């Protein structure tokens, strides 16, 4: 994947397939400690222990169209390339958390990319709520789809008009917290 935000979207698609209703996306960039951390947590149906052992093996998948699943293994190889790691914690009927770490300044680290498009894509699913928290050194931006639903007075935030607004809203705020690094 050319952007980290595409990896994130891929992992969130797993959460959606696991019937999650709330997804928490946490991104922390620390240029002083040289760390880039991505956490994706859901309240989906979870992964049983047996499968969890080899979860980043491309031949371990729950999909039924074929017996290969590349999402987590691709993300893991990106993390390893950047002197980091990918960890998956899960409990059946509770949820799953994916924690990816990388060196911020590593030459192999893909750019975060259009994370706002990833968020908007996830919000196309009206039944899914997303909390997106992004920390850049000491500055923070938080977006909670439940708050947007409350302000709009409707659960149907999956209209192009609202989603395109959210997209620009995220983009502007990320620019703000990062001092124009995005």
């Amino acid at each position, binding site marked *: 994947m050319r952007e980290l935000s595409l990896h994130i979207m891929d992992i969130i698609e797993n959460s959606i397939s696991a019937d999650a209703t709330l997804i928490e996306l946490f991104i922390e960039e620390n240029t002083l400690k040289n760390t880039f951390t991505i956490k994706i947590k859901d309240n989906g149906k979870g992964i049983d222990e047996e499968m969890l052992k080899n979860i980043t093996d491309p031949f371990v998948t729950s999909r039924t169209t074929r017996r290969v699943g590349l999402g987590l293994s691709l993300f893991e190889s990106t993390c390893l390339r950047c002197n980091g790691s990918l960890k998956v914690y899960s409990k059946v009927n509770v949820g799953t958390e994916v924690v990816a770490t990388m060196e911020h300044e590593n030459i192999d680290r893909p750019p975060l990319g259009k994370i706002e498009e990833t968020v908007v*894509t996830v919000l196309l699913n009206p039944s899914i709520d997303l909390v997106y928290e992004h920390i850049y050194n000491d500055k923070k931006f938080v977006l909670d789809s439940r708050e947007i639903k409350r302000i709009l007075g409707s659960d149907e935030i999956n*209209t*192009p008009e609202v989603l395109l607004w959210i997209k620009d809203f995220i983009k502007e705020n990320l620019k703000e917290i990062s001092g124009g690094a995005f």
Partner: protein
Amino acid sequence: MKTIQELEEIRKRTLDKVNQRKDRTTTRIVVGMATCGIAAGARPVLLAIMEEVEKLGLTDVVVAQTGCIGLCKMEPIVEVIKPGEEKVTYVKMDAEKARRIVREHVKDGNVVEEYTMHVIQGKILNDYKVEKE
């Protein structure tokens, strides 16, 4: 700088639209969004569709996403489902092609044949020229 209060204005504007979309005339545009689709560039396609729907002011359209459709080499795939009509599957999409589909098929009702999937002698091909020969 955008503020969250701007949502209030959107709310006032969109209330009617939401009600309209519940009609049976709603067209569904579905984009495949599994690992295969994402890697092939489904996200810009999806965004382009949303922007075009918004630009043309189409109200009876739902944009949605789905998982792997099972035809990874043809991704990004876009399906257009109009009520009472057969589903149309478009393959190897990009943002520009997707905009054209929204304009010509979703809005005006003309299927963009050259981007659809072609099955020739039991094989899935998408080279339009092959079929013409």
